[in-house]
């Protein structure tokens, strides 16, 4: 591992440069051809408030840019949430999807549609459900020795199934075709309906939560190394542990609120980032945010171009990438367990 990549500043500089390049590439690819030079000019015009009304301007500033920002926000949020959950639970397999947080959050979002409440209300409901789902898992899995990995994972999978069943029940009880359609769209996992208005709420909240997480990196190191068992045992009530858990739930629900359930990002991103920058959270956490953002942005580009003019659900593609990655991870963990 390169020593440079263990320091936060180089990681931040390299990461931001990579994001900038990926962002410009994502703005240039799509069904309608837009040359790089024109994309760059449009971006500069957009920033400086100049330029005339053109198809490229509509494409770049109204359609592709909000989508790219949404993808970055979802990926960064899920990557950081997964990283925090893995440290907090000292479980390499913990992620918002595997411990049921994402499904609980999705249930909250669908319940919002079912009850016909506003977008902000649905996001709040999604957040509350994410907290309830996570607390149910931790309450059931808790033992005198803390939170045994396998029990947390098994409980999480089952609680996830319970919330998936509740989502099915809401869909079955939907009032009309329109409501059913909105529920299905909400959960498919995709950014095809993204506009600036939900991003105005979701992106600042995601950034604020990630910033908060950056202040808790020392505590996350202690959690993940098992040097603070007393605090970890008191996770549900300990103020920092609880705050980290709430932050992970909030990031998950914010991601679900704009992109539905996007599986595996929260699981594979922290592992990939750990391989690049090492386990120290003051570098790992920003790396997770950058890598998660890049992953979702890249997958979204594939989703909207690979079968053009059709579009694939984002969640389907992340699962196609995530399942083999998960199996490789499981295999390496079991080998490590055997050799130990």
């Amino acid at each position, binding site marked *: 591992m390169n020593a440079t990549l263990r320091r936060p500043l180089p990681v931040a500089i390299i990461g931001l440069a990579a994001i900038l390049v990926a962002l410009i590439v994502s703005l240039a690819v799509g069904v309608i051809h837009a040359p790089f030079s024109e994309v760059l000019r449009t971006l500069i015009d957009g920033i400086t408030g100049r330029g005339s009304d053109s198809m490229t301007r509509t494409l770049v500033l109204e359609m592709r840019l909000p989508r790219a920002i949404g993808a970055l926000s979802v990926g960064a949020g899920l990557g950081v949430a997964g990283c925090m959950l893995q440290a907090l639970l000292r479980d390499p397999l913990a992620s918002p999807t595997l411990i049921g947080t994402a499904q609980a959050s999705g249930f909250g979002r669908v319940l919002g549609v079912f009850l016909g409440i506003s977008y902000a209300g649905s996001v709040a409901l999604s957040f509350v459900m994410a907290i309830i789902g996570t607390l149910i898992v931790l309450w059931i899995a808790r033992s005198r020795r803390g939170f045994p990995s396998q029990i947390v994972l098994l409980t999480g999978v089952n609680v996830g199934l319970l919330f998936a069943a509740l989502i099915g029940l809401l869909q079955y009880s939907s009032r009309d075709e329109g409501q059913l359609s909105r529920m299905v769209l909400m959960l498919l996992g995709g950014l095809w309906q993204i506009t600036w208005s939900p991003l105005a709420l979701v992106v600042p909240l995601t950034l604020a939560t990630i910033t908060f997480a950056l202040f808790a990196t020392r505590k996350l190191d202690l959690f993940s190394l098992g040097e603070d068992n007393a605090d970890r045992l008191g996770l549900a009530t300990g103020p920092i542990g609880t705050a980290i858990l709430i932050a992970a739930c909030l990031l998950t629900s914010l991601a679900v609120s704009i992109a539905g359930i996007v599986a595996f990002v929260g699981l594979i991103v922290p592992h990939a980032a750990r391989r690049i920058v090492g386990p120290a959270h003051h570098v790992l956490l920003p790396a997770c945010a950058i890598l998660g953002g890049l992953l979702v942005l890249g997958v979204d580009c594939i989703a909207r171009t690979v079968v053009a*003019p059709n579009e694939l659900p984002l969640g389907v593609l992340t699962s196609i990438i995530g399942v083999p990655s998960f199996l490789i991870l499981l295999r390496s963990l079991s080998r490590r367990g055997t050799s130990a």
Partner: protein
Amino acid sequence: MRHVRDAIALTIVLGSVACTREHAVAPVVGGPHRIVALTIGSVDTLALLGELDRVIAVEEDCFVPGTEKMVKIKNDDHAGPSKALNVEAVLALQPDLVIAKEDLRPALGDRGIDVLWTSNKSDLPTVERIVQEIGDRVGVPDKARAALAQMHAREAAISKRVANLSRVKVYYESGRPGRTSGRDTIVDEMIRLAGGVNIAGDQALANPQLSAEAVVAANPDVIVLSPWGDSPEEVMQRPGWNRIAAVREKRVHRIAERDRKMQYPSPSCVDGCEQFLVPWLHPELDETAEGKR
């Protein structure tokens, strides 16, 4: 080895009993009088043939006039995820004929009930086949032939009316953004009949999911929305869609709940085409008619 042989023999015996049961349903004298119709198209066809009084239960979302007080059974004759069919609810009605889509064969086949299977496809040749089959089964083949002849005559009249008009590009949205109807679906055929070109008419999938950019790139002249999903106002506010001719000229129309039979395979789909699709696609026809008046 002997056990394996016995198991194979038992399977063959049970299989032949099952097959015998499926084919053993005797036709009812005077045609069926307890029909459970699980497709909206079949109910509409029966209504058109004047045989609705033979029907005792219909699909839950059925909106055909005259079915309001009938037993409603949850089924999957609509967009979105399938809703499970309660087979016992169907059997409890003791139907003498069930009309259902092919995809319900695993649930309803081999239950000792007479089932008329309809194709999962929904193009015009399928409509013609369903109408004739239903007419034959309820003992009114002549009525079915007459209904089809009338349908053909109206199709010909619509074709003649729009023959010399320019073809209009149409985007049809079925429930959620980007979801549309592809080649050889009833919606695609009705758009073509009304003098339009379905922007997804080259798609082999029945329900392709187009990207927003693909719709903007196709630049449809008219947007037709199904009764569920986003409203015309919401569609017109989608980012970048102000570039689309249909949005600029406010030619975004939503099919009313009562008119949604255009989306189901029955002769009534031609009504929908005639009553609102043609005027939406060719408003100049109305202006010409008013001018003549």
